[in-house]
């Protein structure tokens, strides 16, 4: 009977969860080693549908920074991580960008969107763009 070993990441204890399952109907026949209910849930999720939120960057045109940090709004199935990275590598956005803005919809038909992780203002030639923001003006020194 095939089995899967999963290290639980929910707390520092790092329980080693061992799951035996039937290939035919993918039903779990035995699960051991988890330390709590949350760990049990985590183990089953990792068995049936392992997914990860991808965080990376995309290029920015005319921004005060060359890169925009982005993340997938939800976990991407683990086996799609590299195809999705490839897809994201083709994206370039034009500044300004607002945090939370959708950068790309429905990545590789997963139904999952790519989201901007910060504001990036348009580059205006100022060396210290932060000072242009409201409430952040430096006082003039006499």
């Amino acid at each position, binding site marked *: 009977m095939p089995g899967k070993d999963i*290290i639980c990441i929910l707390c520092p204890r790092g329980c080693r969860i061992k799951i035996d399952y039937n290939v035919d109907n993918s039903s779990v026949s035995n699960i051991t080693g988890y330390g709590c209910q949350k760990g049990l849930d985590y183990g089953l999720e990792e068995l049936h549908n392992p997914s990860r939120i991808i965080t990376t960057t995309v290029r920015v045109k005319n921004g005060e920074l060359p890169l925009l940090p982005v993340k997938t709004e939800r976990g991407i199935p683990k086996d799609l991580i590299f195809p999705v990275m490839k897809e994201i590598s083709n994206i370039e956005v034009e500044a300004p960008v607002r945090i939370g803005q959708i950068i790309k919809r429905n990545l590789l038909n997963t139904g999952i969107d790519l989201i901007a992780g910060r504001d990036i203002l348009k580059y205006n030639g100022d060396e210290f763009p932060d000072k242009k923001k409201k409430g952040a003006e430096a006082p003039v020194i006499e």
Partner: protein
Amino acid sequence: MIDYDLVVVGGGPAGLAAALEAKKNGIERILILERDKYLGGILQQCIHNGFGLLYFKEELTGPEYADRFIKKLSGTNIDVKTGTMVVRINRKKEITALNSKEGLLFIKAGAVILAMGCRERTREAVRIPGDRPAGIFTAGTAQRYLNLEGYMPGKEVVILGSGDIGLIMARRMTLEGADVKAVLEIMPFSSGLMRNKVQCLDDFGIPLLLKHTISRINGKDRVESVIISKADENMSVITGTEKEIPCDTVLFSVGLIPENELSREMGLSLDKATGGPVVNELRETEVRGIFACGNVLHVHDLVDYVSEESEIAGRAAAAYIRDGLERREREIIVERAENINYIIPQKISFIDREREMIKFFMRVKRPEEDVRISIADGENKKLASYKRDLLTPGEMLVINFPEKLIKDNTEKIKMFIEKERR
């Protein structure tokens, strides 16, 4: 000379939280000095998620976590000078700083919060022999190049040290197309968080070689290979175990050191174990009205704790400015047993009937299982005891100690860890 009630040195997560909390507690004239072009500190390059689970009860990336504080700040009258480097602070709370627009600045502060963060240990700090070609970076420098500036540091990578930044960079470099050959750790356990080990190494099949180190770096212009060796329990290389790994890049993730040049110059005593100033429970250094919080005080593993600690400092600075602190006649010294690496705070200086708990942040020296952390008074009478299943040096431990257990005549309390009796 410019005059402020409060000057916060550093605009990272610690400085931002401290300044906002002081503002919330009624302080009007606050200035943040930040040497980078942007606020947010190291969070801006930590584009991965996992931040905020404790503080915001949701999972955020580093820039998102920073954005929450920066947005809050822009709705206040807190002044910010970015691109500004503080070069000196004296015990009279006079600050010398400089930037390229205003030149040299002299600032007088009613209170100061030190929030300068920490720096990475380098190859030189851990004395790895060999050539000195291009391609050798600290993990955080590589992270900045890759995530903020848009340069790929290399293609075939060996990482020394299993600290969190090293683990995060192993995944990040892999996602960007690099071949991460191995992560080496000289200790018999990973110093990073478990979730980072699983999600950054195991997910991508990157081997973690415990009790291993780099014994030589080879390369003329660019790194060509590293020689790795097994290490014994004294962290010495075992000869005869050498193996060569071809690579073009070596990343060092071998620990962080609180950045305390300014503190040292003003003569603050530093705790050897934390690398940061000695502080009381309100994060006040030995100079009254000068506070320290965040990684300049001790290296935290979660930014959530940095925010929490910085709010303590921010509130305390506000109370100091308003003259609202009640000091104990004698400070209570916090002692620790041998297997505890450090405890923050190192002393208790104030009387505060309103607070229910004093929070201790601490780290153990080595992993401990099924233990009890106990706090005793000067006569070795046990005051409180906390059961823990597992303690590791990589995970900071938080202990809430009830204020009411402190008697007026208490001179010291001592913390120790003992095996739980079954």
